[in-house]
């Protein structure tokens, strides 16, 4: 079982719908990430939150709106999506080990989104 929990596992939505993807971790990690993955491609970074502040936005369209309500939760609000936004959305978290310098990403199982 993954220590990063994503819900829902599957989501089908129309182009006019508003929906949200949710991610939760209880490992005390202070960095959380959203990645988008299309079929047969590697994950692509969308957003990074560090200590609950948005630190990286990889020029993601505004129809994707991230939110970090607290250090354990990360949401991705979806509105007016296009069919080409259909993909696997992966959440991850990480924390830097001060002693070793290791900064290991742990991924959730993903939310598979289909936009009709």
């Amino acid at each position: 079982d993954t220590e990063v929990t994503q819900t829902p596992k599957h989501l089908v939505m129309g182009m006019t719908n508003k929906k949200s993807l949710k991610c939760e971790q209880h490992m005390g990690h202070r960095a959380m990430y959203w990645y988008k993955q299309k079929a047969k491609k590697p994950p692509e970074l969308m957003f990074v939150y560090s200590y609950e502040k948005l630190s990286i936005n990889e020029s993601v369209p505004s129809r994707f709106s991230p939110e970090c309500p607290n250090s354990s939760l990360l949401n991705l609000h979806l509105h007016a999506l296009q069919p080409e936004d259909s993909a696997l959305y992966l959440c991850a978290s990480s924390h830097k080990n001060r002693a070793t310098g290791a900064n290991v990403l742990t991924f959730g199982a993903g939310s598979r989104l289909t936009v009709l």
Partner: protein
Amino acid sequence: GIQVEQSPPDLILQEGANSTLRCNFSDSVNNLQWFHQNPWGQLINLFYIPSGTKQNGRLSATTVATERYSLLYISSSQTTDSGVYFCATRGGSNYKLTFGKGTLLTVNP
């Protein structure tokens, strides 16, 4: 930004065979991870290995940072090893992990 290249892109093995997957990167890195993505999409962290060698059961990994490559060894492969293997690394940024395109491994019974 950092470029990450993986080879081979595809690999088909019979159960029990050994294999070596390679990851080349274009610049100095402070982080390198190997992941396995199973057919259901779950990305599992296999190794955090910015340098040196680590082993975990039938899997081992070696990174030679000065020569900018990392190798993942799979011995006595099993059908459950099938999936995509990604290497990913960071350069200067603390947060942006750049992924290679992956190696699709198929292990046949």
